[in-house]
Structure formats: structure tokens, C-alpha cells
């Protein structure tokens, strides 16, 4: 069953205890496209992104209302195992967080625990090629991942994620700790990856959102004085950056905010 949409949020609200961090989000995320989430600090971008693969389950007191559908199934229904969700929806974090193991093991571990039965060497090579890291590390696969530069570590984390062959990859400011050259490499990589994967990326970098994404979701605190964020505008990236409907979006993307 080919579905145009990889994931679908219906009236999704996210709470930390009694505090509503994200209010009533509706989003249709198209498969094999890059969707960017932008917005000011504290408006709930990371919270929303982590809700997509149930990473928020580890925050005590965090719960959601509404629906998050993947191929028609609500990822938050009782009969869905969060481990299975995370296996299908991988995540790359803001700070590179490789395992304190060898480069090879960083990729092999996720595959092994998920019961991968194929040729591990091949998988490692394919994943590193896919993350545009192979040429730099092929001679030192047994070295510690910590010996890599920050940009290389982040690409290793991407390689580790694509090694388990998820359907969707979530990225939370994946380039914010990197220099412009490494950032560019990651962006090129995303263009490569979107041939096979659906990507959702949170970024503070307007140019980056404009450069890499097909769709953009603009998040903002829902009203004056409230601390709950919501998606105020969601459409094609071109439109968000050239002809936004909402005045607040226009102010934000042109840097005239506040």
C-alpha cells in the first residue's frame, strides 16, 4: 500500500504533567519529502518531534492527546509497542551522540539488536556510504567513534540510523553544533536520503530550512502570554518564505520578529 503521507497528526496535543507544551497540531507529512519545523525557542519544536517516535515516553509525566497516524494506525494506541515505533522512525539528535564503541560497532549494534541477519560488513559499508562517511573512515572502522570530529560523528549517527532501515528519520537541529562546511555536507546528505526516506527536521537556521526542505511548519506560542506552542502555518517551503499567509510567519522568516 503506497501512501502519499508517511505520518499524520490529528489534533495532537502534548503535555508535560498538566502543562500543555504543544497545542492541537494537525499535520500531513508527505513521504519521501523533507519537512522542516521552524519557530522561536521554547515553542515546542523538539517536543513535537520527539512525539513522532515516542521518545517523550521517557519523560515522566509526559502524555499526548489526539492521534498520530502511520499507515492508518495510531502510534499511541494501546496495542502499539513504542520500541517498534522507534525502529520504524529513527532519530538524529542535536548533539552528536555516538556510542562509546568502535565506528563499526556503532552501526552494527542497532542492526544486531533488531535481529539483522544479513552480512554485517556489507551493511556497515552501505550505511557509511549512505551517510557520506565511508571514504573518511574505511581504514579505521575499529577506532573509537569518539576520535571522529563533531561533523563526522553526526554523520556516523545518521549512518547508524539508516542502518536499521527506518521509514522516517527525525532530526533535531542536526547541524547546530557543526561548522558551515560540515553543515553543508549534512544538507547534501539529506537531499540524497530523501530518495528513500521521509525526513522531518527541526532547525533554527532559516536559510537551511529554505535550502533543504519541501514543506515547512511554522510553530509559535499560540497566543500572547500562553506557554503552549502550536503550528500556525504549514505549507510548501517556497510559499512560507515568499508569500506566507500569517503575519507572524512573515515577521519571523524575514527576521523582523519581536
Amino acid at each position, binding site marked *: 500500500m503506497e501512501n502519499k503521507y508517511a505520518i499524520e497528526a490529528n489534533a495532537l496535543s502534548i503535555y508535560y504533567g498538566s502543562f500543555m507544551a504543544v497545542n492541537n497540531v494537525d499535520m500531513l507529512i508527505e513521504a519521501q519529502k523533507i519537512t522542516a519545523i521552524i519557530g522561536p525557542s521554547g515553542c515546542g519544536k523538539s517536543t513535537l518531534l520527539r512525539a513522532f*517516535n515516542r*521518545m517523550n515516553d*521517557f519523560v*515522566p509525566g509526559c502524555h499526548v492527546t489526539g492521534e498520530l497516524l502511520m499507515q492508518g494506525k495510531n502510534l499511541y494506541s494501546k496495542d502499539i509497542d513504542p*520500541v*517498534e515505533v*522507534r*525502529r520504524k522512525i*529513527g*532519530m*538524529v*539528535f542535536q*548533539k552528536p*551522540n*555516538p*556510542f*562509546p*564503541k568502535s565506528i563499526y560497532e556503532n552501526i552494527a*549494534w*542497532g542492526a544486531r*539488536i*533488531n535481529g539483522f541477519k544479513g552480512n554485517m560488513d556489507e551493511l556497515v559499508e552501505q550505511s557509511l556510504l549512505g551517510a557520506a562517511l565511508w571514504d573518511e573512515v574505511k581504514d579505521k572502522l575499529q577506532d*573509537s567513534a*569518539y576520535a571522529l570530529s563533531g561533523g563526522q560523528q553526526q554523520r556516523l*549517527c545518521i549512518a*547508524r*540510523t539508516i*542502518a*536499521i532501515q527506518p521509514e522516517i528519520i527525525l532530526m533535531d537541529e542536526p547541524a547546530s553544533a557543526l561548522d558551515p562546511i560540515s553543515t553543508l555536507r549534512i544538507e547534501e546528505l539529506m537531499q540524497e536520503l530523501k530518495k528513500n526516506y521521509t525526513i522531518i527536521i527541526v532547525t533554527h537556521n532559516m536559510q537551511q530550512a529554505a535550502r533543504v526542505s519541501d514543506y515547512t511548519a511554522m510553530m509559535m506560542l499560540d497566543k500572547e502570554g500562553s506557554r503552549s506552542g502550536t503550528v500556525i502555518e504549514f505549507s510548501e517551503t517556497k510559499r512560507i518564505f515568499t508569500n506566507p499567509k500569517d503575519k507572524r510567519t512573515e515577521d519571523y522568516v524575514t527576521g523582523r520578529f519581536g
Partner: protein
Amino acid sequence: MSINSHYPQAEDFRHALNARYRAASIWQALFLSALLIAIISLLALIYNVLDGAFGFVAFDYKNDPAAYTSTPMSELTQKELAAILKDNLSSGAYNKLEKEQPLEKRSQAELYTLFLERLVELDTKNTWSMTESLLHENEIRAEVARKYPTAKLEFRSWLTPQFLVTPMSSKAEFAGVRTAILGSLWLVGIAILFALPIGTGAAIYLQEYAPKNFLTSIIQTNINNLSGVPSIVYGMLGLAVFVRVMEPLTSGSVFGVTDANGRTVLSAGLTMGILVLPLIIINAQEAIKAVPDSLRQAAYGVGATRWQTVWHHVLPNALPGILTGTILSISRALGETAPLIVVGASTFISMDPDSPFSKFTALPIQIYQWTTRAQSEFHAIAAGAIVVLLILLLTLNATAILLRNRFQRRW
């Protein structure tokens, strides 16, 4: 300009700065003296122990060695000694020795000890500390000549290889710490085997699984307080639970050990295990807490279960810290005396502990017992045993530290 004007300028600034430097150097001097006091105390401790373990000893023979052999005592060979023992011991005593280990197979030192103990009957008159021996040699010689005209004076180390491998004896000159060392090793081994898995397991549950609620915070507070409970209380607990209630198990009678009671090395080891449990839990918890969350997220992010995350990432990274807790526990279990007295360590035993159900003694018990004796030679061997205890402590800790460093150095 108006902002700056609230700060001291030029002259005033230098003045204030000098005052700051003065305050800093006073504190630095205080810290240095604190360090010096610590070092001096340590040196005093080491000196005090070694002072007792070496020194002059005045002794006499009840029976003249010349009655047994014409060879000077210092030149007796292993063969000669075996022959002398065979000729002069009662046949009952000789056969008993032969049964334990044939005399020809024993070392010269061992036979010489038997010769002194059984035949010439060494009789220690007095002992002196190392300091006394070095500073007042002439006075000591004069005193010995006056008080014990036939006695011989010798500078000896109470700490000999023989001391380590000889079991307990009622005569200080022939006593050793073999039984006590083995008892202590059994004790520490059982305590760690019991407390390390349980303590680590409890720490994992508390850190990774337990919900943060009122109940867990009560449990946490209790664990923290338990580590401060006086050890004698643990002794009472061990006596009630392991020695009495669980007697069939700890005495080994359910495993077919006959003629047994609960005062075994197993009971004592388990008591020590309970005693060090809070120490292990707290250290393991700290170590687990110190594993960065980003690492857990990385594991969950590739679809790991909680158990896989804990087993493959949290535990290996917490291992050095867990071993730190183990090191502290070893030191504690090796040195504690009070709980052992309560659960019934034997004060006189010369049989090696060879199973968890053995009667036992331990180094601190042995030391305590020797220091309470009136004769000065027992104080000397107590000092020797303390040196052994310290060395054993350092060896066990060094092993654990080496192990820890190996885990730390991996990445």
C-alpha cells in the same frame, strides 16, 4: 563612566588586589598544613605498626639443644632435623606429624620450628619494640644479662614467610596467620559475591525502572541512612537471621554437613554482605546516574528495549563507578571486627576454612585477640598481623583499581 565609578580605581584597586592575594595565601597555607597533618598521621600510623613488628627478643631454651645434637643449631640441615625429631618425639606425636605431612617432605624451616617448639621448648622472656631496640641496645643487653642470665638476645622480625603460612598456635613464637588470612578471604569473597549482584541490581532498578514517587524516595532515604548504621547492629541482624533462623542453610546441614551450627564463614560473609550492600547500591546508583542521557537516547533511538539499553550501554559505562563501590566494600569487610564477634568467629582455630560451612577466624579478630593477651610477644605478632592485614587490603584494592582502570581506558 558612571558605571565604572562604583569600582575601586588605580591605587585603590591595587590595594584591594593585595588584600585579596593575602587572603588567598592564608588559605593556601591552611590547606597545605591540612595536607601535612594528614601525611604525618599516616606516617605515624605506619611507624607505629612497624615499630611493634620488629625488635629484640630475649629467649631461653627449657631443654639444652646440645642434648639432641652436637651440630650448632644454625647449621642443622633438613635431614638432621628430621632424624632428631624421629628419635626424640614420642611415637604418638611423631606418627601424628607424619600423617599430616611426612617429615622428609617438609622444609628445613618447618622442621626447625618443630624442633624449637617440641624439643628444646623455646621460652620467650621479653620483647622490645624496634625503636627501643635501636636506641637503647646497651641498656637492653644489660637488663637481659641481669634478669635472665642464661637467655639469648636476638633482633628478629615477627613478620616472616613462616608467619604467613603457619596456623594458629597457643605459643606466640610459633603462631601464624594462615587461618586468619584464609578466613578473611572467604569472608570478603562471600560478602562481595552476595552484595555485588544484589546491590547492582537494586541500583539499576532504582535508577532505570522505579517510578519517582513517595515510596521510592522513602526507600532511597533508607538506603542512604543504612550505610551509616553502626556495624554491631548488622552483627545482631546476622546473628538473628543467618546464624539462628537460617541455621539449616548456613550450617550446611541441609547439604548433609553433620555436627554443624550456624556460626560459619557463610553466616559471617552474608552479614558482611548486608553491611556493605548500601555502600554498593549508592555507588552503583551514582555511577548509573553519571551515564549521560544522550547515550540512553541513542540506544532507544535505534529501537533498543530498556533492558538492551541498560545491559549494553548503561552498565558497561557505569562499571568503573560500580567497582569503586566494590573497593570501598572490600576495605570495609576486611576491617570490620564487631559483627564478626557477634556472629561468632572462633578465637582459637587452626583448621583452614575449606567450605562455606567452616568455622573460621579473620585477621581483625586474631589481631584483637592477640592484643588482649598479657605477654609482650603476642603484641609483637599482633603488630605483624596488622602489617599483613594492611598488605592484604592494599593488594585487594589494587586488584580492583587495576580492573577499574582497564574498563575506563577502553575509550
